[in-house]
């Protein structure tokens, strides 16, 4: 690795020659503030917050984009630098809707943080605040351009990472704003709802459609039974919202907190329906392989990916597994099996999923998923952030809660269900089960080849004389490339796992927002994933079919995978959608 030597504030550092000044400064333990820069997403040197001085260089340099050079002498804290950054902040604030107290990002806002650090005067420039309409028509994301600082991180996430580009910068001058073509609501565009724009936003311009109030109302209604279930990745991220280190597994405290939200509340484990998904999906895969069905089979648990196929590759819909997602399966199980078993009218059950994802809010409203024609199976889908807000509002001291167990009967799950939250996890869990269907004595449980950070992981397994070729990717930009290869016959697989968000659900659009210093310098995806793989390793059961809850529900209710009852409640259909419109 070729390195260069430079000085940051007179501190000598040696760094790889590909580094920027921003990265080099970090080596000297100096943090340069950023706003428009976001690692792996956006590097346009536009906001001018990261400016620094350098010896023998004219003007101020944008540290996020300026490459290091041998002998460069950088100064990050001079009067000129401080003045420039402060003025930049004051200009940004001059057209910013400064309603900070009621802002969803209050105390968790990059602009606010810098405003405090630089001691800015928010009234330094007298201007009119812009008045843009707030777009809250979609069931998953709200856009408030009055808070937007035009950093373009959301636009870059949508275009560069996800390859969708349903949002962009519109108009020019003071009328510039981020929006969709012809200023349509996000709801009328082919947005897939992944929410990568939301977790890229440094301020409060983008957030999930908040639904906590509906849940509070249900909890306050004594006639209702409020049934929560939490997706596999929530336990690995919820702690961050309470200041705990990234990658802390807070399953026990999370359960304790949910149970304390109300007397009529139960907390179930969605890892169970991850197991259930695998039973159905692995059987579907074996069925497709044996009977010449459409291959490769695409996983269908990620609602962003499913909507992506519907909009952009409708001709590939037959490749999607017909299995509902774990969220949708749980909704169906609760409104059917659970109600029958406990003799409850499904109308008196209020189902709340806690998911890492904004697209799941859309999924919950899909008419194809209803078990009964009159109402949705999942009443409200809450993001990790919304659950954290509910816990805070309930006055619970999260860090000091005891560890508690999920409520019966949906309390037990396998390691296969746990790893659903990380890219490659669904495929690995499916392989564990499919291998066992094909060969009853198959022993391998760890399929390391499909884990890890590589963009596309491919593997081939021989099971009972059958060759099974698989591939995994995450991020829709990567997914598009893989689908194109499959379409053009350049790659053939039996099963392909795709998650819309890079790294899978642990990096979902509904996860706790990260500070820029974390996004840009910490491998938070690896830390969050590790919490899941560690739990898998020590799980009592690791193959989904070994779960006692799975055995119970097939014995008592579904009988066989892919047949009558399971087909009705656990499988679904898809619709071809337009690539320019809703």
């Amino acid at each position, binding site marked *: 690795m070729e390195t260069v030597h430079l000085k940051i504030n007179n501190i000598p550092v040696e760094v790889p020659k590909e580094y920027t000044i921003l990265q080099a400064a970090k080596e000297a333990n100096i943090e340069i503030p950023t706003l428009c820069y976001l690692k792996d997403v956006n590097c346009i040197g536009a906001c001018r917050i990261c400016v620094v001085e350098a010896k023998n260089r004219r003007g101020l340099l944008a540290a996020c984009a300026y490459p290091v050079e041998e002998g460069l002498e950088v100064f990050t804290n001079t009067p000129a630098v401080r003045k420039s950054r402060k003025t930049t902040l004051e200009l940004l604030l001059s057209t910013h809707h400064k309603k900070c107290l009621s802002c969803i990002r209050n105390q968790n806002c990059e602009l606010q943080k810098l405003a405090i650090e630089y001691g800015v005067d928010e009234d330094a420039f007298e201007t009119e605040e812009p008045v843009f309409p707030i777009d809250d028509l979609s069931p998953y994301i709200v856009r408030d351009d009055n808070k937007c600082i035009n950093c373009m991180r959301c636009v870059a996430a949508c275009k560069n990472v996800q390859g969708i*580009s349903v949002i962009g910068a*519109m108009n020019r001058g003071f009328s510039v704003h981020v929006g969709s073509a012809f200023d349509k609501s996000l709801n009328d*565009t082919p947005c897939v709802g992944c929410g990568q724009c939301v977790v890229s936003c440094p301020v409060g311009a983008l957030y999930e459609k908040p639904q906590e109030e509906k849940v509070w109302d249900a909890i306050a209604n004594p006639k209702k039974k409020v049934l929560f279930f939490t997706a596999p990745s929530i336990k690995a991220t919820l702690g961050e919202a309470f200041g705990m280190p990234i990658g802390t597994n807070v399953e026990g405290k999370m359960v304790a907190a949910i149970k304390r939200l109300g007397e009529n509340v139960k907390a179930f484990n969605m890892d169970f329906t991850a197991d259930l998904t695998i039973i159905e999906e692995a059987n579907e895969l074996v069925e497709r392989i044996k009977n010449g069905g459409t291959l490769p089979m695409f996983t269908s648990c990620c609602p962003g990916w499913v909507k992506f196929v519907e909009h952009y590759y409708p001709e590939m819909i037959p490749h999607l597994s017909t299995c509902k997602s774990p969220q949708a399966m749980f909704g169906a199980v609760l409104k059917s099996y659970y109600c029958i078993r406990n003799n409850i009218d499904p109308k008196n059950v209020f189902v709340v999923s806690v998911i890492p994802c904004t697209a799941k809010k859309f999924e919950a409203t899909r008419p194809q998923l209803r078990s009964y024609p009159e109402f949705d199976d999942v009443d409200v889908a809450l993001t990790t952030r919304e659950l954290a807000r509910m816990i805070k509002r309930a006055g619970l001291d999260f860090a000091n809660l005891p560890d508690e167990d999920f409520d019966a009967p949906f309390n037990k799950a396998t390691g296969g269900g746990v790893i659903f939250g990380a890219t490659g996890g669904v495929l690995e869990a499916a392989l564990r089960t499919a291998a066992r269907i094909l060969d009853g004595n198959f022993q391998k449980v760890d399929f390391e080849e499909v884990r890890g950070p590589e963009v596309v992981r491919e593997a081939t397994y021989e099971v009972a004389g059958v060759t099974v070729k698989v591939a995994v990717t995450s991020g829709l930009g990567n997914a598009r490339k893989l689908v194109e290869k499959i379409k053009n016959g350049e790659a053939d697989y039996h099963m392909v796992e795709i998650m819309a968000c890079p790294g899978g659900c642990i990096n979902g659009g509904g996860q706790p927002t990260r500070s820029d210093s974390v996004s840009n310098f910490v491998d938070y995806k690896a830390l969050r994933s590790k919490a899941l793989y560690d739990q898998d390793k020590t799980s009592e059961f690791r193959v989904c079919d070994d779960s006692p809850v799975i055995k119970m529900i097939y014995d008592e209710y579904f009988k066989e995978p892919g047949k009558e009852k399971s087909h009705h409640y656990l499988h679904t259909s898809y619709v071809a959608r337009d690539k320019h419109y809703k």
Partner: protein
Amino acid sequence: MADNIPFKGTQEQEQQLLEVIAKNKELPGALLPVLHEAQEIYGYLPIEVQQMVADGLGISLSEVYGVATFYSRFSLTPKGKHKISVCLGTACYVKGADKVLAEVEKKLGIKSGECTADGLFSIDSCRCVGACGLAPVMMVDEEVYGKLTPDLVGKILDKYIKEEGGNK
């Protein structure tokens, strides 16, 4: 209003646009020249045309729209049979061009940049037509009208409306 004006693109126009797209498709930065020619072909860039451009170049509609709204040379609304252009240059402005523009807008019931539903009139503003001695000035098609007052504006427009056999 522009939204009420149905898109009247012809087969020939579409063919021309497809040729333009095919010619530019592989070039870096193809969007700008394609939009230029598309506006030449159709006179403006309605959603139907922008969608054809997006499909043809394999980019999203929001990317096309972003560029189309960045450059003031591009118009998203059709131009009327009679193109009215009110000068908002310095000399005209100090002589009350804003009142002239307001009167035109009031009279026709549309805003600057828009076109009447019957497709007869469109209003734009411009910066100096080189007739500052006559300020404030407006042009209707190629005709220049100077030393305007709101009252005069009404009379001039009435003449065109009468010619078209309508009442406003």
